């Protein structure tokens, strides 16, 4: 050794506390798995997880209230904690708390994942009341990854965060208690396609590194002006980074996994994926395309146009003929990704970007709550074999459970963007931002596909309220306190954001006011 000493890195612990709390709680959760007797585990995990998420949320709020929004990257330039990131953190954490309440509901997860479905072992495990409590630490790891993903300031940490958020989800998808074959299939599909697409992301990183000589988003942005003669590397790299990110959003033509995985996964996990992962992935997409590649927007906008249009059309059209409620919601989620993408495209001058960003943030908040609520309702409509997924089983639900069906209908109307629901303002904000950003044709497509989409939402409502219930229709599970709280909260959020959107719009505007830090 020649005696060089490495300077100690500085890490802003207070600033990163929300994320560190989540990761720390995850590790404590693993220790709980190791050292606590089986019968105690769940009763330790649930408060631990909820407290960690709530604490992280509190720290996020405290950070904003007391310290304001930082203007420089943290953790040696690896993490960018800025307005949008803090907003997204808060949103992810609240949605994760809500999803945890749903996950906590009984009968969602397999008793023993390693037991072969239908075997004597499984029966025995169920009879002994086993539960796969590893779900909670996995959830926390995933949430930690989701927080890091949109806050990463270089592509390396973004890649690591992508994997941190994805790997636990691959596992969680395969842990449904009922219809385990479907669940395992969802898991294997999600995993293979996820690994495949992350390879694309990685190659895009490599090309981007080849172009800029660094993976720092700021350095890439700077290189756009200085490096010449290597444009093809940059363009191909941009495209492949886009593939990896668009896959996570479920944008067409990378959407194929979404219906299958959403249908097969335990519904609580689907709720988590449909809300938080979408939020997180949009944050990351914005960071890559606005911060690093913001000056390249003339090149990527046309392609993104195509993707957005295709996504909206595919999502809306394919949803029409779906017969499974979760699959239909999955396609609806694809269509919504398309709607939000119109906001991503609406770049321009500083004010324009502010407007578009705040619109996207608001849309994500509105959609996140509504979708969690909708999936929570799905968990409550049950058959002998678990959830009653097939739409025909939902016929006449309005007669059996008018309140539940009414709330679900309300969520569907919010998805459709009917005024007085949160969805309306989300769509309105994003579309008006897109109009201001010279993307009028895109908005036209958006409005037309919204109209198509409204058709299948209304179809479900009509089915619930104007069809005769089947003689042996599904039972409505008596909801646990957690599930009812989730439904109530989601409904309240949908109403409040639909009637008094101003505070949240203001908050989103505030978060977007300084755009991303570089």
């Amino acid at each position: 050794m020649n005696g060089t000493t490495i300077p100690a890195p500085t890490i802003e612990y207070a600033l990163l506390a929300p994320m560190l709390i989540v990761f720390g709680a995850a590790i404590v959760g693993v220790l709980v798995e190791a050292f606590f007797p089986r019968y105690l585990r769940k009763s330790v995990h649930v408060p631990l997880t909820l407290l960690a998420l709530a604490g992280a949320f509190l720290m996020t709020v405290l950070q904003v209230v007391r310290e304001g929004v930082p203007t420089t990257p943290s953790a040696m330039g690896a993490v960018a904690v800025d307005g949008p990131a803090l907003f997204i953190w808060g949103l992810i954490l609240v949605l994760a708390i809500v999803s945890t309440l749903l996950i906590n509901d009984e009968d969602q997860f397999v008793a023993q994942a390693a037991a072969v479905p239908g075997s004597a072992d499984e029966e025995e495990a169920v009879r002994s009341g086993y539960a796969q409590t590893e779900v909670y630490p996995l959830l926390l790891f995933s949430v930690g990854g989701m927080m890091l993903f949109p806050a990463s300031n270089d592509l390396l940490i973004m890649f690591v965060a992508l994997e941190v958020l994805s790997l636990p989800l691959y596992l969680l998808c395969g842990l449904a208690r009922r219809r385990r074959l479907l669940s395992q299939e969802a898991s294997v599909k999600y995993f293979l396609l996820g690994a495949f697409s992350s390879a694309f992301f990685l190659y895009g990183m490599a090309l981007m590194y080849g172009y800029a000589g660094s993976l720092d988003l700021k350095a890439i942005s700077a290189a756009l002006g200085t490096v010449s003669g290597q444009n093809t590397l940059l363009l191909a790299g941009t495209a492949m980074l886009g593939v990896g990110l668009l896959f996570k959003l479920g944008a067409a033509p990378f959407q194929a996994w979404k219906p299958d995985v959403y249908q097969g996964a335990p519904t609580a996990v689907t709720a988590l994926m449909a809300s938080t992962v979408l939020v997180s992935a949009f944050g990351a997409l914005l960071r890559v395309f606005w911060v690093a590649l913001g000056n390249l927007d003339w090149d990527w906008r046309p392609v993104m146009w195509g993707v957005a249009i295709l996504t909206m059309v595919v999502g809306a059209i394919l949803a029409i003929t779906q017969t499974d409620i979760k699959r239909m919601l999955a396609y609806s989620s694809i269509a919504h990704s398309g709607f939000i993408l119109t906001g991503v495209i609406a770049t321009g001058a500083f004010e324009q970007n502010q407007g578009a960003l705040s619109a996207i943030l608001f849309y994500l908040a509105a959609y996140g709550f509504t979708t969690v609520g909708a999936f929570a309702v799905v968990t409550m409509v049950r058959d002998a074999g678990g959830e009653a997924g097939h739409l025909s089983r939902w016929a006449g639900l309005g007669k059996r459970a008018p309140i539940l069906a009414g709330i679900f209908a309300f969520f569907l109307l919010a998805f459709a963007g009917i005024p007085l629901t949160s969805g309306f303002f989300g769509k309105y904000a994003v579309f008006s931002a897109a109009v201001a950003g010279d993307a009028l044709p895109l908005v036209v497509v958006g409005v037309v596909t919204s109209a198509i989409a409204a058709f299948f939402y209304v179809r479900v409502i009509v089915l619930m309220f104007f069809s005769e219930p089947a003689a042996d229709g599904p039972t409505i599970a008596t909801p646990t306190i957690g599930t009812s709280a989730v439904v109530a909260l989601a409904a309240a959020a949908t109403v409040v954001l639909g009637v008094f959107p101003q505070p949240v719009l203001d908050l989103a505007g505030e978060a977007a006011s300084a755009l991303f830090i570089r």
Partner: protein
Amino acid sequence: MGETITFWVLAVVSVAAALGLVFSRKAVYSALMLGVVMLSLAVLYAVQDAPFLAAVQIIVYTGAVMMLFLFVLMLVGVDSSDSLVETIRGQRFWAIVAGLGFAALLALAIGNVVFTPAVGVGQVTQAKGGNIPALAEMIFTRHVFAFEVTSALLITAALGAMVLAHRERVRPKATQRDLARARFSGPQPSPLPGPGTYALHNAIDMPALLPDGSVSAKSINRVLARHELEDDFTPTDPEKAAMIREALAKGEAEEREHGVEAEQPIQAKDAVIKEDGQ
């Protein structure tokens, strides 16, 4: 010059091996081919001034990851071979079209760039006193957060493997005593009659004969016999073959009559379950 030769040799080897990975029928061959690619790449890393990576590539990738692959292959059935007949219409055609198109686009993107002569990492490593210290400094300063976060990944991996693969014993393991009790409380305390032994055949697929010359049904290993019947490997003596068939049919009829449990060798596990149930 030396690098050029190394490159071309290893390039040919690694592409050939990669193609072998894709096109060999047996999964094990594929795994070995992947090992070849990885080793070639390790050498290419070393050639490009990345000795640490070359070592990690060999130790971690080829050594650990590939072993894991092989291990799972063993678990799944090492000699399972894939049929290479394509079942999805158009899949192969479009896959190859997309693959060629994609490779062409990437080659276009790369080929269009005029690279200045490589700077080489020698200077940087010199300044820091070698490849490994230089990397270490980066890991523990600028990228320390990424490094820390990867631990989450590793914990997740361990946890995931535990969840999916580790089967916790729901009941205590059956002891010798339990097994013996189960056996004696069952219908057949004694061992089943062994298979037949003849001058010409001495094999477990030959039935034993009872004193009256008929075949002892209990001595027939039904799984084997069924396979043999299907493949026409019955004894040349038509009389014996008929007996085996008869015995098989009888056994099946009994099975149908009494349910699956009749005449089956008793599994210790089942026996214990039965006792618990009673």
